């Protein structure tokens, strides 16, 4: 018997239609990336004649080698290596930073009673309503005043407050039996010891799931790095792509390199999501619900 079909009729035509819809869906999802990949394997001159079709060309290895800095540096295209590194540092910093400060604040509001506890909770809650898009200019001014423009700190710090992560960890902590706290206190373990040796190990699945989501969130940031990184050497790969595409449109025939860059920009987060699919799916539905 089919796993979930029970008494419902097994309609062959319906199942076939379902597969058809899914295959079409996969095709639509893959198509833009596939075409980008095809473009990245052709010589630049091919684009002028409109000769790029749907089959890969012979220049893939050469194009990617040029992008990562091996072989002849392409004109008008900055080296990709440093940009990938900048993106990686930003994504890692945002993910680790958000998780660290949220774990600490969730610990504070769950395991201690102190004046202004609820006030602190509401202050954290308010950050939900202040996405960077709404406070662009004044935040930029603060970061400029603190001399954090073109630094990793300037990229990372303004994005790491997290109400969602704090709520999530508080929820996790609330499910941990009080007996554990009592036992720890009886053994003379202080709060930080309890935090390191009991709470952190018990929350590691949630931490890992959140890390996957936040790494992707960090890697894909656009507006904020665009404003804070005014020097090319600090630019992230996602923000650089727009400048590259503008070049391809107006001056040099570099679409093959633009698409190569796009592939390199989307590969790391896509690899993370595919490698940690289960964590990601569970994490997403838990954080957002």
């Amino acid at each position, binding site marked *: 018997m089919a796993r979930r079909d029970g008494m419902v009729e097994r309609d062959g035509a319906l199942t076939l239609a*379902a597969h058809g819809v899914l295959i079409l869906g*996969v095709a639509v999802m893959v198509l*833009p990336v596939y075409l980008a990949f095809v473009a990245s394997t052709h010589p630049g001159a091919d684009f002028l004649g409109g000769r790029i079709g749907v089959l890969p060309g012979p220049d893939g290895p050469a194009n990617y080698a040029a992008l990562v800095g091996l072989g002849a540096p392409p004109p008008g295209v900055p080296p990709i290596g440093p940009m990938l590194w900048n993106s990686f540092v930003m994504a890692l910093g945002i993910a680790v930073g958000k998780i660290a400060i949220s774990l600490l604040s969730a610990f504070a509001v769950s395991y201690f009673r102190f004046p202004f506890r609820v006030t602190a909770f509401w202050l954290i809650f308010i950050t939900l309503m*202040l996405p960077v898009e709404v406070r662009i200019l004044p935040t930029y001014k603060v970061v400029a005043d603190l001399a954090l423009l073109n630094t990793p700190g300037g990229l990372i710090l303004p994005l790491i407050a997290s109400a969602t992560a704090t709520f999530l960890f508080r929820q996790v902590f609330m499910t941990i039996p009080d007996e554990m706290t009592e036992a720890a206190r009886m053994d003379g373990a202080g709060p930080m010891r309890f935090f390191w040796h009991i709470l952190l190990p018990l929350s590691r699945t949630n931490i890992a799931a959140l890390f996957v989501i936040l790494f992707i969130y960090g890697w894909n940031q*656009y507006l904020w790095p665009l404003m804070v990184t005014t020097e090319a050497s600090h630019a992230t790969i996602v923000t650089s792509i727009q400048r590259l595409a503008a070049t391809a449109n107006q001056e040099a025939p570099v679409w093959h390199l633009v698409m190569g860059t796009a592939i390199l920009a989307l590969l790391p987060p*896509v690899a993370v999501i595919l490698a940690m699919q289960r964590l990601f799916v569970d994490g997403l*539905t838990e954080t957002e619900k």
Partner: protein
Amino acid sequence: MQAKRVTFPNKVLPYLLLAPQLAVTAVFFLWPAGEALLGALYAEDAFGLSRQFVGLENFAALARDPAYLEAVGVTFLFSGAVAGLSLALGLLLALAAEKAGRLAGLYRTLLIWPYAVAPAVAAILFWFMFDPNVGVAARALRGLGVTWNHFLDGRQALLLVVLAAAWKQVSYNLLFFYAGLRAIPRPLIEAAALDGAGPVRRFTAIVFPLLAPTTVFLVVVNVTYAFFDTFGIIHATTGGGPGRATTTLVYKVFKDGFEGLDLGSSSAQSVVLLAIVAALTVLQFRHIERKVQY
């Protein structure tokens, strides 16, 4: 908001634990938001030399500004189209995945990864497909007699950013709809089937109503996404144009403040957006509370 029943007695430690989060919140969130609120009440010249209190004049000016009203229209059209399209496709794919039996997991893997693609990167991929000179899709459209040039045609530009934004969001909706479908009690569907209800009738009478909480949640999330997370899509492709055809509210805040240096107006626009996010957040939390009672 409750604390644990068993807590630690420390008096100072909790403040130290909260310090990093509260410091970041105060310096990079509350202070700038306060500045925006205050700045909205002043008119400042472009060089920042003089500043004059104007009360609510900046807001009144927005309400009179045809460019702002146009951005409101564009934002609603854009958000509605993105949310509608990605929700419909997400639901369709989730329903299909439910019927796919053992292959559902494989399809899910093949369908969820666009979530990880940056909006700006997705936008560049779509630009390339639809580029009037080199794009495969533009060439195909030409074959069908449609002249595509999103650099000149405002409606085509809007359609392009809608497609890119929706493409990226389908996987998210699919995941939540799929989870919602799996949570529907199987006997309910079986009983309806025994009573002779066909697949369409079962969907409209049972499945869709039971998915309502998921749908409401997703509508809010999708509208929030379309409002705030699509800046990169617009900036990387159309730059708000041609004309003002793809200038959304968020894009306009950026353009007026960062490029036009009209701080008073930009702050007032930020405050309006703030009110919108606040409303969306409240809606989202209302929904979560209701879910808890189910």
